């Protein structure tokens, strides 16, 4: 039944889908252009090591961006992810230093757990405190970072203190794809499927699209909000473990300022800040684009400071493109609109 129904449906969907996919397409094009230009100027950009670095960096940012996208789709924002990443990385680092025999899976779960607790706290504060998420998560950004600093007390965990198995996990590959990238892909695919194909996922879009209508439609808005923040927090915690595995050296400042990169990736990736639209695929592509830009600038020997200006310009471009596309789509939908003339 599904197989029979699909072709007709996809045929009709295609024209509108193209408009909605335009963003993803635009990022892919920008990415291709960037890679081409950089590679021509310096072929070393396409060396295995360079590509590996980009993918590892993207993996961590993409896990954060997927979580952020879930929250932004519900018309909220989570600014605490950088701090949560730091706390999780430091927790897992300490744990592994003291218990070298601990399996990697346990480390991943502990990290996700620590993040999940922070995320749930955010969610509960947003839901019951009736305070905008921007304010709540700005608060927890500082609180969580403060706790990490207090706990670390200036000490740092070095790579030689961590068990070799854990560091191997940060470098090992399966069919020459790093484990970190595989984990990020797994997170991306699972979250993408849930958001697209499950009732709970669609309800997140509905909440962001119109909070009022969501309430009237009987959606458990409060509970879903908490869950969205929990997911974002847990993924930030997971990203903390990946961070620890990749760099090996962890201090209390790990992940400082990441939240802005993450929000930038999500916005550039086409997740509307007013909620209700966008996808985790776009967010992950945004993470890939931003990481690649950082890497390309280094290879091109352009001052790193330009990176910030370029990212800022991209955000403005993305928002401008959103407005333009939205206006175009609205106009075409109106024209197609009422069949009563």
């Amino acid at each position: 039944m599904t197989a029979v129904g699909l072709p007709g449906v996809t045929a009709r969907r295609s024209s509108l889908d193209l408009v909605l996919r335009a963003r993803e397409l635009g990022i892919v094009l920008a990415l291709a252009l960037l890679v081409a230009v950089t590679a021509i100027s310096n072929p070393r950009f396409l060396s295995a090591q360079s590509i590996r670095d980009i993918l590892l960096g993207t993996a961590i940012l993409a896990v954060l961006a997927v979580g952020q996208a879930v929250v932004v789709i519900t018309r909220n924002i989570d600014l605490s992810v950088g701090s949560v990443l730091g706390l999780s990385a430091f927790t897992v680092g300490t744990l592994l230093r003291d218990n070298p025999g601990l399996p990697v899976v346990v480390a991943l779960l502990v990290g996700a757990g620590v993040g999940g607790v922070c995320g749930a706290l955010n969610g509960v504060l947003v839901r019951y405190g009736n305070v905008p998420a921007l304010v709540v998560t700005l608060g927890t950004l500082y609180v969580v970072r403060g706790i990490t600093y207090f706990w670390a007390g200036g000490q740092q965990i070095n790579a030689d203190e961590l068990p070799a198995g854990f560091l191997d996990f940060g470098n090992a590959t399966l069919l020459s794809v790093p484990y970190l990238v595989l984990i990020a892909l797994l997170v991306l695919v699972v979250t993408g499927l849930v958001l697209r194909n499950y009732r709970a996922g669609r309800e997140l879009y509905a909440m962001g699209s119109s909070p009022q209508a969501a309430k009237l439609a009987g959606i458990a808005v409060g509970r879903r909000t908490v869950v969205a923040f929990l997911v974002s927090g847990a993924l930030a915690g997971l990203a903390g473990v990946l961070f620890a595995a990749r760099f090996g050296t962890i201090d209390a400042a790990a992940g400082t300022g990441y939240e802005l990169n993450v929000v930038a990736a999500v916005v550039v990736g086409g997740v509307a800040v007013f909620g209700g639209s966008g996808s985790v695929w776009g967010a992950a592509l945004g993470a890939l684009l931003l990481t690649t830009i950082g890497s390309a600038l280094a290879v091109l020997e352009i001052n790193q400071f330009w990176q910030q200006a370029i990212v800022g310009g991209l955000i403005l471009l993305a928002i401008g493109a959103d407005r333009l596309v939205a206006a175009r789509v609205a106009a075409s939908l109106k024209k197609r609109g009422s069949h009563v003339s």
Partner: protein
Amino acid sequence: MATDTPVLRMRDVSKSFGAVAAVQNVSFDLYGGEAHALVGENGAGKSTLVKMLAGVHRPDSGSIELDGTPIELATPADAKAAGIAVIYQEPTLFPDLSVAENIAMGRQPLGRFKTIDRAAMHAQAEQLFARLGVSIAPNRPARGLSIADQQLVEIAKALSADARVVVMDEPTAALTGVEVERLFAVARSLRDDGAALVFISHRFEEITALCEKVTILRDGKHVSTDPLADLSVDEMVRRMVGRDLDALFPKQDVTPGAVVLSVRGLRRDPVFADIDFEVRAGEIVALAGLVGSGRSEVVQSIFGVDPRDGGTVEVGGRKLKPGSPRAAMAAGVALVPEDRRQQGLLMELSIERNVTLPRSRALSQLGFLTGSSERRSAKEWTTRLKTKYGRLSDEVGTLSGGNQQKVVLAKWLSMAPKLLIVDEPTRGIDVGTKAEVHRLMSNLAAEGVAVLMVSSELPEVLGMADRVLVMREGRLVATLDRSEATEQSVMFAATGQEVTV
């Protein structure tokens, strides 16, 4: 055709918001296969009743029974599960999601691994639209649909949920004639399939065209429930407004002076058009009409909060720049808006700061606002208006509704306006304060201020106004002098009934 036992009964339900009793001991029964009209003036409690059925508000007392068993409608989800679908005047769709998804939200057909079966979802939407005889593409997003189409999507939603009770809260307010007919055809087929229909409208011809029974509400109380055939339109109007008009309105007789406000051909698409009128010094002119007829929009456009698409506004013989509240204020226009919490006051600021806000420049010395001059001015005006407060430095949000309204008035009166525009000046305030606000308006008119008042309360309109301008659907449909204006004549003009009593 109708069932013998009621599908849904509301028994003695009451609901208060703070001190305001919105609904008091209202009972009525809904039968399957029957369309039931709910009529009453603005503020009679219709919307509150609807929200209780929708699970948005919980009744303070009384009970709701479905098929004879009492049910609790604590959340909209409960109402949905009970088979009650509500279609609001402003449809509540998700603009970013597809039409099919809007219809199926929460009940999407599931396939393998509990994933949403999109093909089935689209087929379901297509079936529903075929049944309704409309052609809306299920895959398009809800954004950009006309209000009429959005309402049809809402009805499709109700159909897909097998709703047994369908409530329509003024669904026709924004529709054209053709669209209304199509909606009614759909509503009739719903009713013939056995659904109980609740229909709210201000248009009597629609009620008679669709409904079998009518329940009349007034001031939150149940007046009567009758078969529509037993009731003439005149009688319905009389029961809706039937209130003793003996409340004292201290309107002083003033000989009108020069023209202060002159509005010519004012137009804002698609809200209103062809608005022509004048207000003279010392005159109180009321702008009457139903909610949504465009009254507030007209005054907002005059003041410049909203833009205008055509026409001129002159104050004291000089043309006002469109879209500039600053220019309007400079010309001596003051607007006391309808929603004082949102538009009239800064709730977190002190009383004195609120009162002196529009004149903060005039009261400051060398660019600094000095506390003493601010306090002196605020004190003078709050005393004149007999405002009750603890200290001038208290937050405005801590005052009662009536006193808040006085602070808004004080704020604008302290500017000594030539033209005072008040939008719903006494909504939600108690009788005593109401009388004070009325006396104040009358005094101002006597001092030569031109007053333009938007009000949904007929006694206030009739008691205060020298002239009543009646609006319907964005047009000025009648200008009634004080001598001609009665509850009936205003109501008939506002609802489009040409019958005279």
